[in-house]
């Protein structure tokens, strides 16, 4: 059996959902081991066991919480030396990709990023990766050992199918020289809104919104529907809304019951993060916009008129 190591990202002491999704896939590929670093690693081991890990290597040192990438890279490099996994899986998230990048460079093996699936083949691994802006999918065979693959969030369904993992203390000496990029303060800005990734309705705005001054129209509709507001990369780059709202290849991946794209043309960078939504509604002035070719309902018209009218109609229906 191939040995699969899953890097379990911890967020506020809990295993990130993306890491649990990786566990589901890893179970299909071989014997699953996980590594959890920082505060909460011990509790994480129990969760990871329920998701199929045979053993979880843990280290609860807060150095992993407080310094970017380098301590985790030291730990993974040392774990690789002792365990020699065939495949190391990471989530394609901002924190994990920083660790994966450093690790791949240190081991000199390269990596495959942005994968949507991984399969075992001829004793190795093949990843499916969006290609040519997402219009195509390339099958990429990993050449190195370990194969390092970063998988997009929401590529698999997490499920509890396992038992109790053996917990192994990972003794790693984090060198003084790895305590460098120090997180000295954490500032929360977002309010207690529904999380974009968890919302059952997502309403996203693009350039067609005309400017940041019109985004409150989307907020109103979102609050009427109990949903969250997202955005395309174009308007995030233009500074209209914060990066935390970006949906797409390098933003968040969402899979809500209904996705409403307002004034978004539908560039691949965006659609790769939302195309698995159950129902897609597009509102756009341009009948030829690519988003119209993938929407279940495409409305050609003026969003500035349609959105407020829709909000009013939703509110009216709810009070009935």
């Amino acid at each position, binding site marked *: 059996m191939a040995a699969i190591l899953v890097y379990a990202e911890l967020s506020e002491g809990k295993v990130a959902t993306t890491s649990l999704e990786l566990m589901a896939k890893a179970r299909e590929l071989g014997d699953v081991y996980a590594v959890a670093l920082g505060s909460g690693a011990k509790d994480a081991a129990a969760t990871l066991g329920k998701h199929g890990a045979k053993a979880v290597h843990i280290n609860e040192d807060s150095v992993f919480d407080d310094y970017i990438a380098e301590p985790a890279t030291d730990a993974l490099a040392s774990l690789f030396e002792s365990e020699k996994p065939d495949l190391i899986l990471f989530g394609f998230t901002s924190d994990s990709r920083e660790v*994966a*990048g*450093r690790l791949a460079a240190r081991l000199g093996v*390269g990596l495959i990023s942005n994968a949507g699936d991984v399969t075992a083949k001829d004793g190795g691994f093949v990843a499916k990766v969006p290609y*040519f802006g997402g219009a195509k999918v390339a099958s990429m065979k990993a050449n190195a050992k370990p194969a390092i693959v970063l998988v997009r969030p929401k590529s698999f369904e997490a499920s509890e199918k396992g038992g109790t993992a053996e917990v192994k203390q990972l003794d790693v000496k984090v060198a003084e020289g790895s305590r460098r990029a120090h997180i000295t303060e954490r500032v929360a800005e*977002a309010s207690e809104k529904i999380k974009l990734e968890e919302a059952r*309705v997502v309403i996203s705005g693009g350039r067609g919104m005309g400017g940041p001054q019109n985004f409150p129209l989307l907020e109103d509709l979102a609050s009427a529907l109990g949903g969250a507001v997202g955005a395309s990369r174009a308007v995030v780059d233009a500074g209209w809304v914060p990066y935390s709202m970006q949906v797409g290849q390098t933003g968040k991946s969402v899979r809500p019951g*209904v996705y409403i794209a307002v004034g978004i043309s539908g560039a691949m960078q965006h659609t790769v993060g939302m195309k698995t939504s159950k129902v897609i509604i597009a509102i756009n002035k341009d009948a030829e916009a690519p988003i*119209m070719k993938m929407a279940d309902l495409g409305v050609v018209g003026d969003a500035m008129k349609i959105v407020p009218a829709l909000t009013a*109609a939703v509110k009216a229906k709810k009070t009935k």
Partner: protein
Amino acid sequence: MKIVVTVKQVPDPNSNLTLEADNTISREKEVVLDPGDECGVEEGLQLKEAHGGEVILVSMGPERAKDAIRKGLSMGADRGVLITDPSLAGADALLTARVLAAAIKKEEPDLVICATESYDGSTGMVPPMLAELLGFPQLTFAKKVEIDGSTVKVHRQTADGYQVVEAATPALITVTAAIAEPRYASLKGIMAARSKEIKEVAAGDLGVEKGRPAETIEGVVDAESRKAGEVIQDDGNAVEKIVQVLAAAKVL
């Protein structure tokens, strides 16, 4: 302070990609300096203006990538380095990082600035690899950068706010588009850029071993696409129609 900004020439994000018959991306299209890198150049220039020093642009690409470097020079950067070599065509992230690291080491910079990710690849893997190969700490997703003596401090964008991250220089930072609005090149800047140095370097000059690529492409197929549904023109009935769809999806 010596600042290196990595820059890349990419297909113009405002034009549509086209595929050749052999599944490679058409080379006929317009190419520009990556818009994310423009923000990196701008931040480099602002740091230089505040603290003095030099801004050097380093790029890997074909000969025509000089145009992208020239664009940054016309914004005000001091000089450029282009690593160009036919053997580097199609380089993966690790090889790219190795080549850039070898060229950047020669400059002995205090700070390396990268965009968070490129516009065309959008995977953001080169910066952490580069930081590792340079032996630098990485301060990432910066939406604000401050330099105080030999300490660099950034506001690192997170999902629900930001973190304050500090490290001693030399260091590598990645910047988001929120960092700074790129300036327009003035006519004077464009004229001045013509006489600024762009040093061409071949892969052999850097002593980088090409190695085996991380992956082999076994095949390319069309992505699964959703079927187009109904497209309607709003003549006053759109809201009613949308409400029906919301109700059918049980979110209303």
